[in-house]
């Protein structure tokens, strides 16, 4: 270095350091978006995680969570060995045991249950991306008591969509970002399609052709960049949307052709008040629904393409019955003055003028800006269409809709709106992602009405009932599942009710269980409603026997979460960089509207701890338990190689397995084909994913597109090439209603009749969310909701040294006027009080929030001792968890019965129904959150934290000085959304990022 103090030292910068010994590819799991990542490995450590530019999901980008994967992988909270509880539950007293002991113990517990009464195993998984395995495992075990987290997540979206349009929002469909002219986003802060939504919004706004309207009580994130913010009152979207429908019908701004061709709007509904067939579709002998052919003046099967179908009128059927086209019922309902903007404005908190204007804008976008693509295609009936004509109005919705007890009908209302505008799977509209669209509803039916010892179930535990006879209830109409899914209380609970399992198991209602096995769900904290109650259920003992009410709890987690200390046997999992995984078309794939895709994870680093991937463990257990399909007839395990072995070789049906790519002996087949021994290798060579791009004539109208339907059938997604007719009017819902009215063999117990009759309306309607209806408006005048922080994934983020610096505590955001009414200012502490309890938090004023709503970031509040954090971490002392005041049960109804705090149709947990009031804390109370539960006994933290400093990377930097032979390339300019910018800024070349080339397609190549 320099000698003279007056000489300026010149730095020699190495612009070409060696950054990796090796770059491996796999799939991110910092959230459920499943982006492809390039993992830079140096000295066996993870040097850098980068988005895989060739990956269909993220196309090279990585969100904050994904970018922080290194700190997740080296988290101080990582579990390191199987644990057996030695102290009381919750004490955190464990004994480290060997895997063999752990597995034998599990086999002993599970074997006993399977031999006596398989129902006594409740197997529930949380953020499970291997549901096709876990569900299959439960089926072979023979317990109906299986579900993943969908029941408290967004089953309302799934069910409403699958029972209406054969697809759904969530991550199973997407807006046609590149053609849409009007985009409406309902109740989304982040969602699963984390990066694709950001990318789509970025491209859409950069092109500047579309208007973006965000319907959300809070103006952050996506809503912050919306052209218009509709800050309505939580729980009122149904009213808002149906008022839009009212306006569109009144002005006849609806897509008649679309309704006639693709929906059941013209199907004849029998009008026979009091009759067993009232409200059902008129069908012919073959069971085909009928419509009225105005030309021939007689009913014809809906499949008759020569028909000229009537949309209104009363018609006499040959058998003397009277029927009305579904459209007339629909029109009569929504044209009613009660749905007029003026009538709903007050409740919704949005002016009638605004509602009317939005309706006008929708109509304008749909009918005056139609998108015409010169792509000839052939519909299901063989008719060729020269162009693809789209109504460029797209919509997306998620938990702001689903997490309410009226979410199912609200979501159906949104689909109704889309359908009336003809914007389903058309250019510029909402697009299905493979394997959707499916039959409405998809097969199969839920299985497990009468499980028997040592018998697998006849089918998968979760499915889609077609009517009352498919419910899982006993002769007396009582639930046969521990979570009461598919019972009269929650007939269409297609994802189960994970949020009720612990309560019900504790209460022995409908019956006690012996083993509760959970995977990847922090039920002891942020995924529990009523946290303290849940902890009580987990630790409560039977006074007689002195045993726990829930005798045995097996739990697989990778980290020391709040749930771990409450289990008896802990099966420590690996981190996502240490294991195989499979993101399958049988579960939640990575498809786009342009074609199917699936993916894998491969281990890129070896565990430095005695941990095993849960899927391996599950398969091992299946072998030891000799579960059918996991062992050969001689009892030898079928998948000695564990999960990778299963992924490559398991066949669900002949030719159909977890992965669709490179099937068949030579790996030349897609979708179907015999197992291919080096399938996984082929995936790895391709960046750990497989996609198939549909041909342009298959891009749209998939529900009625001959070429697409043929392809879908060949892939095993649909049983036939029949078109999928969108169900505006739901006959299935009507069947439940008829049962409630006393018709048919399977009827609800009297206590449920009114509820079923009310909520199984064949047409979408709005009702006040249950908590709102139950509590006194004066006492609890405010709504309280949460939002996902984009940089945090539920509870995982806080163990992450980088992410927690961004949000180590959460505030309660309050509108200035509301704050003024309560005498609150910034930084004040307040009690947030619900009918169930109270929690303490610190206030931040915010203009961009509906004045009747307060909100906070989800799952930032932590329990002391968890997650490898110090006991004085802000997360557990300043941050707060709203779940403390959300009850899993509704206030008592007449008769004392307390329903689950759920949607009456699907059982979806109604998190956002929460009503609260605020009380300013006294100076003494200010400063820390409450309830402040006793600290958990924390194990010795792992991780890289030395003397209070984290110096990650110090030893990974290339120490070499700049080398002469590597001068460094010249820089290349990078333009974000280059394709769209090129279209709007002359002089900018088309392409992507720093690669200038004509974009291959609308996605900017």
């Amino acid at each position, binding site marked *: 270095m320099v000698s003279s103090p007056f000489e300026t030292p010149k*730095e020699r910068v190495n612009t070409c*350091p060696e950054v990796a010994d090796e770059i491996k590819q796999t799939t991110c799991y910092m959230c459920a978006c499943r982006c492809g990542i390039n993992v830079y490995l140096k000295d066996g450590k993870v040097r850098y995680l980068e988005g895989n530019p060739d990956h269909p999901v993220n196309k090279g*980008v990585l969100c904050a969570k994904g970018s922080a994967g290194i700190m997740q992988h080296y988290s101080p909270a990582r579990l390191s060995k199987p644990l057996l509880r030695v102290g009381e539950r919750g004490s955190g007293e464990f004994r480290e045991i060997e895997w063999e002991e752990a597995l034998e113990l599990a086999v002993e517990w599970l074997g006993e249950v399977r031999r006596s009464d398989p129902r006594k195993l409740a197997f529930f998984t949380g953020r499970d991306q291997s549901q096709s395995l876990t569900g299959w495992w439960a089926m072979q075990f023979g317990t109906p008591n299986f579900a993943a987290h969908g029941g408290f997540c967004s089953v309302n979206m799934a069910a409403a969509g699958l029972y209406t349009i054969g697809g759904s929002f969530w991550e199973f469909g997407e807006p046609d970002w590149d053609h849409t002219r009007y985009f409406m986003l309902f109740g989304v802060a982040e969602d699963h399609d984390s990066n694709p939504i950001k990318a789509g919004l970025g491209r859409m706004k950069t092109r500047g052709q579309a208007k973006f309207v965000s319907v959300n009580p809070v103006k952050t994130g996506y809503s912050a960049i919306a052209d218009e913010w509709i800050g309505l009152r939580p729980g009122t979207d149904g009213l808002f949307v149906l008022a839009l429908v009212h306006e569109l019908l*009144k002005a006849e701004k609806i897509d008649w052709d679309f*309704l006639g061709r693709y929906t059941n709007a013209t199907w004849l509904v029998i009008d026979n008040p009091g009759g067993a067939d009232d409200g059902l579709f008129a069908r012919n002998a073959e069971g085909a629904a009928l419509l009225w052919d105005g030309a021939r003046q007689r009913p014809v099967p809906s499949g008759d393409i020569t028909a000229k179908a009537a*949309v209104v009128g009363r018609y006499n059927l040959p058998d003397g019955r009277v029927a009305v086209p579904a459209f007339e019922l629909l029109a009569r309902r929504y044209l009613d003055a009660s749905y007029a903007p003026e009538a709903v404005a007050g409740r919704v908190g949005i002016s009638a003028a605004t509602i009317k204007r939005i309706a006008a804008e929708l109509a304008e976008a749909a009918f005056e800006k139609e998108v015409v693509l010169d792509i000839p295609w052939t519909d299901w009936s063989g008719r060729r269409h020269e162009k693809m004509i789209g109504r460029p109005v797209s919509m997306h919705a998620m938990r702001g809709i689903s997490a309410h007890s009226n979410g199912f009908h609200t979501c159906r209302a949104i689909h109704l709106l889309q359908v009336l505008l003809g914007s389903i799977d058309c250019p510029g509209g909402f697009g299905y992602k493979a394997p959707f669209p499916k039959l409405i509803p998809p097969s199969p039916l839920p299985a497990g009405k009468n499980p028997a010892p040592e018998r697998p179930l006849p089918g998968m535990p979760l499915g889609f009932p077609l009517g009352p006879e498919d419910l899982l209830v006993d002769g007396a109409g009582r639930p046969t599942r521990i979570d009461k899914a598919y019972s009269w209380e929650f007939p269409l609970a297609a994802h189960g009710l994970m949020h009720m399992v612990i309560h019900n198991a504790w209460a022995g209602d409908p019956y006690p269980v012996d083993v509760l096995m959970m995977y990847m769900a922090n039920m002891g904290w942020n995924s529990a409603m009523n946290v303290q109650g849940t902890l009580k259920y987990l630790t409560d003992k039977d006074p007689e026997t002195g045993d726990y009410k829930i005798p045995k709890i097996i739990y697989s987690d990778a980290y020391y979460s709040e749930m771990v200390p409450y289990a008896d046997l802990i099966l420590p999992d690996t981190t996502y960089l240490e294991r195989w995984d499979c993101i399958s078309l049988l579960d939640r794939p990575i498809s786009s509207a342009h074609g199917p895709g699936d993916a894998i994870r491969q281990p890129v680093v070896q565990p430095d701890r005695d941990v095993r991937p849960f899927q391996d463990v599950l398969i091992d257990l299946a072998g030891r338990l000799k579960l059918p399909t996991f062992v050969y007839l001689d009892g030898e395990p079928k998948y000695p190689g564990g999960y990778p072995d299963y992924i490559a070789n398991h066949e669900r049906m002949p030719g159909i397995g977890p992965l669709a790519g490179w099937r068949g002996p030579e790996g030349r087949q897609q979708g179907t084909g015999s197992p291919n021994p080096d399938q996984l290798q082929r995936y790895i060579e391709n960046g750990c994913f497989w996609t198939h791009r549909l041909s342009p004539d298959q891009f749209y109208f998939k529900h009625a597109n001959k070429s697409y339907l043929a392809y879908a059938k060949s892939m095993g997604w649909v049983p036939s090439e029949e078109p999928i007719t969108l169900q505006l009017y739901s006959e299935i819902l009507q069947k439940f209603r008829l049962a409630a009215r006393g018709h048919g063999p399977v009827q609800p117990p009297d206590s449920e009749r009114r509820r079923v009759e009310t909520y199984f309306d064949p047409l979408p309607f709005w009702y006040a969310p249950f908590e709102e209806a139950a509590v006194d408006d004066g006492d609890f005048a405010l709504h309280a909701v949460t939002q996902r922080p984009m940089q945090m994934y539920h509870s995982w983020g806080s163990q992450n040294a980088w992410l927690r610096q961004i949000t180590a505590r959460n505030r309660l955001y309050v509108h200035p006027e509301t704050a003024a009414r309560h005498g609150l200012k910034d930084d004040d502490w307040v009690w947030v009080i619900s009918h169930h309890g109270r929690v303490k938090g610190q206030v931040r004023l915010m203009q961009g929030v509906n004045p009747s709503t307060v909100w906070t970031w989800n799952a930032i509040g932590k329990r002391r001792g968890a997650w490898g954090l110090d006991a004085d971490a802000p997360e557990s002392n300043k941050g707060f968890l709203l779940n403390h005041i959300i009850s899993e049960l509704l206030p008592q109804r007449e008769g004392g019965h307390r329903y689950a705090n759920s949607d009456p149709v699907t059982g979806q947990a109604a998190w956002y129904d929460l009503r609260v009031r605020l009380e300013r804390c006294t100076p003494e109370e200010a400063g820390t959150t409450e309830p402040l539960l006793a600290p958990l006994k924390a194990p010795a933290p792992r991780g890289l934290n030395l003397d209070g400093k*984290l110096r*990650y990377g110090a030893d990974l930097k290339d120490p070499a000085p700049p080398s002469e032979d590597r001068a460094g390339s010249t820089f290349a300019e990078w333009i974000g959304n280059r394709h769209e910018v090129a279209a709007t800024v002359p002089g900018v070349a088309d392409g992507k990022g*720093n690669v200038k080339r004509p974009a291959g397609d609308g996605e900017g190549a």
Partner: protein
Amino acid sequence: MTSLPRDPGPVKLGLVIDLDICVGCHACAVNCKEWNTSGHSAPLTDSDPYGAEPSGVWFNRVHTFEVVSEDGDSRTVHFPKSCLHCEAAPCVTVCPTGASYKREEDGIVLVNAEACIGCKLCSWACPYGAREYDADAGVMKKCTLCVDKIYNENLDPRSRVPACVSTCPAGARHFGDLGDSDSEVSLLVAARGGYELMPEQGCQPVNRYLPPRPKQPAGDGGAAALQPAAADAAPPGLLARWVDRMLSR
């Protein structure tokens, strides 16, 4: 020479950030940290990483502002900020050691960790809060514009770009030569009315911000409300109107 380059080259590398589409996801901030913690200024030390006062070295931070107009209408604006690689960088001229310097070849402002005495004066001189003191290392650190990435021949060409830029899910970040008025970023800045922060501070920052676009006009030309299709907009009227409407399949 810690005085600014006497004859700065024509190249002025910098970032252009589009506030119209930034959703405030923090990806740029975290990916920056992730790359740079093993990069030119490694490590980006975090103190008390799992404790009561976590605080680390970040080269890029995302703020969120609310802009409230007279009528109480508000805008939420997410605002990422890193070093703006100023042309008249005070962080350079105040530096007593020459550790803080601006590269002639591309205008990148760097800190020479070998020479820095950790006097922090540059952080006082920077109006934008872009200097990050690493107390553990006793030296000042800052955004390097990924100088060890943008030219790095060991990387796939598509990766030779600042980490914060390539990772931005919304595509809100751009990188290029703002010294060349015909460069793509310059054209973009011109087209979108890109601006510099606190010109009154006289630092002549190179980075530019693209302002939030005017919101799409309500109705954008369309009617304020739809006209009923029938004189009698109540069900009877409309239904009557639809009696002889037949839909083909």
